[in-house]
């Protein structure tokens, strides 16, 4: 069984020693918190991995009851899997979760020419946009919006009413008249600008550089 992730053999101390020596390229890096948080997430990953082959499938996620009853559960699970793939390894798992870091004040003063850090507000909004954009064509069409709405409300609202809700939403957001919402239009939607999502959460932080080091 040679496909086990290399993380299993990496001692937590190794993470700490790696960080100062990694050169900063044009990828912005964050700093790992205590190794026990990484260990914690890794033990979560392995506890979900019932097949013990170092990867998670969609069924492994579905085994979490609270996620299985979440109306958008399938869409969230889908975000972990890149296009066309059915398995996600620890690296991919962490990469998706690395979006959920609270936005810290000292980052607002960062060099504006550096590329976007993984977890900035824009990237979070992109993640939400991709929840709606089912076919990953960078546009939310009326059909896609209807499908996601149907997931959220179940059988409790009629087709006509749902259709009018979708129409109104697109009408409000669409600016170039193509009857669909692009990402630029999405982020300009009124209250999305003022959202302070994830205020007060304390999710883990993970170095993106570390992830590239953890080659399979």
């Amino acid at each position, binding site marked *: 069984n040679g496909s086990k992730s290399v993380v299993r053999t990496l001692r937590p101390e190794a993470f700490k020693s790696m960080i100062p020596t990694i050169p900063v390229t044009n990828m912005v890096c964050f700093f790992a918190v205590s190794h026990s948080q990484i260990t*914690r997430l890794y033990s979560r990953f392995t506890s979900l991995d019932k097949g013990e082959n170092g990867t998670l499938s969609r069924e492994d996620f579905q085994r979490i*009851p*609270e996620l299985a*009853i979440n109306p*958008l559960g399938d869409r969230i699970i889908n975000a972990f899997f890149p296009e066309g793939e059915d398995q996600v390894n620890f690296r991919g798992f962490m990469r998706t979760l690395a979006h959920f870091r609270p936005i810290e004040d000292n980052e607002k003063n960062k060099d504006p020419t550096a590329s976007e850090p993984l977890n900035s507000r824009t990237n979070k909004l992109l993640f*939400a946009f991709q929840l709606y954009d089912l076919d990953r064509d960078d546009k939310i069409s009326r059909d896609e919006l209807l499908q996601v709405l149907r997931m959220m409300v179940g*059988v409790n609202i*009629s087709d006509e009413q749902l259709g009018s809700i979708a129409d109104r939403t697109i009408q409000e957001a669409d600016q170039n008249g193509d009857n669909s919402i692009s990402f630029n239009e999405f982020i300009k939607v009124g209250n999305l600008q003022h959202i302070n999502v994830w205020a007060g959460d304390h*999710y883990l932080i993970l170095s993106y550089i570390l992830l590239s080091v953890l080659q399979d």
Partner: protein
Amino acid sequence: NILNSCVIKDQERSVAMEDFWAIVLAGLKVWVCLIVALLMVPAMFGFSLGISETYMKILVKILEWATLRIKTVNKAERMIQSSSFNSEDDGSMEEELRGLRRSRPKPPVGGDFTLSDCFYFYRRGIEDIIEDEVTQRFSSEELVSWNLLTRTNIDFQYISLKLTMVWGLGVFIRYCILTPLRIMLASIGLTWLVIGTTAVGFLPNWRLKFWLSEWVHVMCYRICARGLSCTIHYHNKENRPRKGGICVANHTSPIDIVILCNDGCYAMVGQSHGGLMGVLQRAMARSCPHIWFERADMKDRHLVTKRLRDHVNDKTKLPILLFPEGTCINNTSVMMFKKGSFEIGGTIYPVAIKYDPQFGDAFWNSAKYNMVSYLLRMVTSWAIVCNVWYLPAMHQQEGEDAVQFANRVKSVIAHQGGLVDLSWDGGLKRAKVKDTYREEQQKKYSSMVVGSEEGRSGNSD
């Protein structure tokens, strides 16, 4: 001359061998006498010589010392609490959606939906992926500080030579001294149980029979408890279950039965097995009536309820012992109580059982360990320490259905034992969650989009 000296040497050797075997035999006799005197006699008659208490005290001191050493070396924060991964504001759906929609005027017509609504579901989803309330209950609890057992060490680091030596000594004591002793005690206990109950079963139905049967049962369970090195503290003994009642308790492992039966006799309910278990079951059933079902009968709920009801209505029969959770949970929470136990009628005597995880983890993770490896883990822990609280009897009230009654009993038990009260089904260990729960979430959200009156007009399609 040479022949003579060879013969003499042979004789000397055989004498030495005889001496050797005589010594061994004498040693065994002493060993057995010690066991009988120090362990079995107190177990039979229910008093204690204080040996285990001394053992516990020494152990606690050593563990405290070890914890201190680990803390001084490992000053970096140990993020143990699961709450560190959860958002602080865990408001309800209504509150959060209202917060998300705050800065937007409500549209005049159509539903109150905005693109930001998805954030609520998406945040909850990610939180549940990182840590959820349910799946953690099906694996052993994590300890706050290491208790010198390798099996509970999730974050092993070399701390100091002294600590490692203490740990090594602990391994030696546990595996080489305590374990053979415990295994021997457990086998003696079980053998006596079978022999004793069969013998009592031959007596005619006099009062003496009942008294003897109870005594045999309790005695053998006490021996088994010593075999597992259990230390049990019973609280509120005045609330002990009485004849004709139903005793319900939270379930952590098969050892719960040994724990409860150390202090009283219960009628067991369960499936009849073959093999060793079957021998035990048939022997026990001879001396006093237990309720064993055939596998096929267990599926017939009415049959099961009827038999239980008959047993309960006969006031001379022992109280039934039931575990309404239906499966083993890791002793940090109490999960949904199945309503079947509460439809029988009769008085319910709730009992809360809480194990102290410092001395050994009693939870049976049936997915990971089979019964034999589980029992081996039990006999190689430091000890099994638990508290049992007998709670006042409860009856089903007017206008309360079985589910509400079950939840009421569950919260009483959870409160007493310091356990988290969950309404998730323990069966989720193996089964998928029902779709009805997702439909409830969808319905709740729909009412926030269209409001509860308007929504109904669209339902009939």
